[in-house]
Every structure is written in structure tokens, then in C-alpha cells.
């Protein structure tokens, strides 16, 4: 491996004498594994899997990563490869497939990505040394900028929406239509004869829930229009209804 190839690992491992690692230092189990391979100066094509597996387990225990599923999965994989390496090989009859093969392939692939990351970091740093125009003129009255959105985004949004929908609780709702018009007529009749009356007088004896709701909606709507005023003399007392500024005798 060249120096450049390892620059990411080396930069992050710092002084290799004191092996102090922190959780944030690694972006995943592959990153940690590469770090260990580098530290031990191991040939990536011939990883002493037993040694590396033990060290991996030790580090994730030390870092408290042994509850992170991704690190655990890698630990399990290493232990499995270690076991496979110990199995006796059966002569030359069958070609032996190195159980480390897949892991090496992934490590190399990941290593390459880390190299690209280093390159991107350098590019971003170079770009940051040059400033674009800072002044942003106040926008003249231009039409709003064009919209850019695609069907894929909409479908993606649908998926998010579907994921949001909680387990449905099915309520059976019985339609019991409110008679707001009738209640409004009753209120107007009362207002015509009296400047002020109480909420209870509007309801009459033994009102049903539908009567109460109808009357309430009617009163609120008339109050909104200014035909009547609602007031409550004291807390917890029934409110009284007075003719409002917009009241006109029918």
C-alpha cells in the first residue's frame, strides 16, 4: 500500500504509539477494520483473521460500540471467517475458496472510497479559498423562480406519507345531522322579543346533544356576523346572549 492510500487512516489514527480511538473517528466497521489492518501493517491480501477478529472485538468493546448493530455484524462475520479458516481442507479434490475473499473485496472497495473522500476534501478546501460574489442585490419584482420537481419526488413523498399513517383506528360514525338552521331561527325569534337572554333559555327542557350542538353552532355563527354578543358574567356561569351591533330585526 502506498502512503497516499493510507493517508486517511494515518491522519485519523494520529500517533500510533498511543492507540486512542474514539467513536466519531470511524464512519463504520469497515473504516475501523482498515484502521486495524494499517496499524498492524498487515498485507490486505493475507489477513491473519484470528488476530484481527480479536482486536476488532476488543476495540468495539472498549469504545462501547458492541451495541451498534453494524459493528456487531462485522464482528460476527470475522468470527465466522476465523472458524472457516480453521476447518480442515479436503485434499486437492475441490478448489478451496478463501473465506476472506469477500471481505478483502469490500475492504478494497471501501478503501478506494476513502481515497476519493480525501480527494474531495482537498477539492472543497481549494474551492473555499476562492470567494464568489458576496453582494446579493435586492430582488426586483420578478416572477417567482421556476419550480423543479419530478414524479419520482412525488412518489417518494407518497411513500413517506404512507409510512406516517398510524395503525388505523376505525370509528363507526353515525350521521346525526345538526339542525343549525332551525336553531338559528329560534335564536332570532328570541332576539326579536328580548334584548338579552340566557343560554339555557335557548335550549328548552331536556335538550339532546344534537340540539345543544346545533344551538351552539347557530350562536357562534350569529356572533361572528355581529348579530349577537356573547358574554359570561362570571367564570363557570352560563353565558348570556345580547343583541349585537349588526342586529337587525327581521
Amino acid at each position, binding site marked *: 500500500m502506498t502512503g497516499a492510500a493510507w493517508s486517511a487512516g494515518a491522519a485519523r489514527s494520529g500517533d500510533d504509539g498511543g492507540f486512542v480511538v474514539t467513536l466519531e473517528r470511524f464512519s463504520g466497521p469497515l473504516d475501523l477494520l482498515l484502521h486495524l489492518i494499517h496499524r498492524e501493517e498487515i498485507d490486505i491480501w493475507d489477513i491473519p483473521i484470528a488476530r484481527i477478529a480479536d482486536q476488532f472485538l476488543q476495540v468495539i468493546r472498549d469504545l462501547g460500540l458492541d451495541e451498534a448493530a453494524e459493528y456487531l455484524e462485522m464482528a460476527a462475520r470475522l468470527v465466522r471467517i476465523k472458524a472457516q479458516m480453521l476447518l480442515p481442507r479436503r485434499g486437492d479434490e475441490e478448489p478451496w475458496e478463501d473465506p476472506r475473499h469477500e471481505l478483502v473485496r469490500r475492504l478494497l472497495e471501501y478503501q478506494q472510497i476513502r481515497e476519493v473522500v480525501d480527494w474531495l476534501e482537498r477539492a472543497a478546501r481549494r474551492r473555499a479559498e476562492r*470567494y*464568489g*460574489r*458576496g*453582494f*446579493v442585490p435586492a*430582488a*426586483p419584482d*420578478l416572477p*417567482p*423562480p*421556476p*419550480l*423543479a*420537481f*419530478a*414524479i419520482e*419526488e*412525488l*412518489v*417518494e*413523498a*407518497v411513500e*413517506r*406519507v*404512507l*409510512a*406516517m*399513517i*398510524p*395503525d*388505523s383506528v376505525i370509528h363507526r360514525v353515525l350521521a346525526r345531522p*345538526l339542525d343549525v338552521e332551525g336553531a338559528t331561527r329560534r335564536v332570532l325569534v328570541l332576539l326579536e322579543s328580548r334584548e338579552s337572554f340566557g343560554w339555557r333559555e335557548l335550549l328548552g327542557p331536556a335538550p339532546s346533544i344534537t340540539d345543544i350542538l346545533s344551538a351552539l*353552532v347557530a350562536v357562534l355563527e350569529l356572533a361572528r356576523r355581529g348579530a349577537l354578543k356573547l358574554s359570561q358574567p362570571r367564570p363557570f356561569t352560563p353565558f348570556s346572549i345580547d343583541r349585537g351591533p349588526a342586529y337587525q330585526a327581521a
Partner: protein
Amino acid sequence: MDQRTRLLEAALFAAPRPLALDELRVLDPEATEADWRRAIEELRDHYDTDGHGVEVVEIADGYQILTRAVFAEAIERAAFAARPVKLSSAALEVLAIIAYRQPVGRAEIEEIRGVSSGGVLRLLQERGLIEVAGRSEGLGRPLLYTTTPLFLEHLGLGNLADLPRTEELAVALRPPQTES
């Protein structure tokens, strides 16, 4: 141009507002106010004599590089500042609900998303992607929203039937399927 004049040009270019003489001092502690005045003069002359598209303008007790007025019309016509705007994910979600369940009221949208959506509805309406199609018969007669032809146009769809089928959303608020 003098090295200080170049620095001045870079600074005026990068600054988000006109820079006053005493603000320039930080750029180069060794330069005096007179030095900066000279640099401003040099830059101004250079822009003027070489015939640049920009000029040094004194504004609000400071100096700024601005495009010359003669090019304003062409630039405004090009409207480079108008980078296409992407809809936020919140807006897309509301749009998705309306697209599949129209006509639909705000309460239902908010029930599905679990957050209030008035602002997003207004934005989508302003952008002409949804419109009010009428009122529900229900209590309070809430407004009902539908998508507009512009919505289809944006997505390049012939009509609403061309939307990808998503049975779940179209049919009802079904519980998510039992999955792993």
C-alpha cells in the same frame, strides 16, 4: 494593477455590502487610509478606461463593485438569479396527499401528516399547484383542495390517471402492511 488594488478588488467582490475605508484596514494593517484611497482610484480608473462591464461605486459611505447600468436590462431579462426552486419535502408530502385523495380538506391532510399544514397549503396555492375546489358538506364546511392542470404540466402527465398507482393512499388510510 498594484497588489493592494488586487486585494481591494477581491475584497469588494467577496463582501456582501459596501465596504467603508476603515473596514479595509483589516485587510492589510500596513496600508494607510491614503493607500486605500489610491487603490480605490486605481481600480476605478482601470474599470473606466479599460471598458469593463462593472464599475466602482460609492454607496452609503462605502465602496462597492456593481454592474454598469447599461447592461442591467440584458441581465434582468436573463434572470440568472432565478435558479429553479425545489419543493420542500413537506410541500411534496402535502401535494402527494392531495394528488391521490382529492378533493381533500386540510383536517384530513393534517391528520395524515400529524403536523399542521396551513403554511404549506398556502405556498402550494400561491405556486398554482393546488386550488380550492369547493367546500365539504361537513361541520364548518371546510375548504377542499384539488391539484391544478399546472401540477400535471410540471410532472409531464396527461391526466391524473397517469399518476403511479398507489392503492394504499388512494383507497383509504390503511394500516401499514405487516412487514418484517
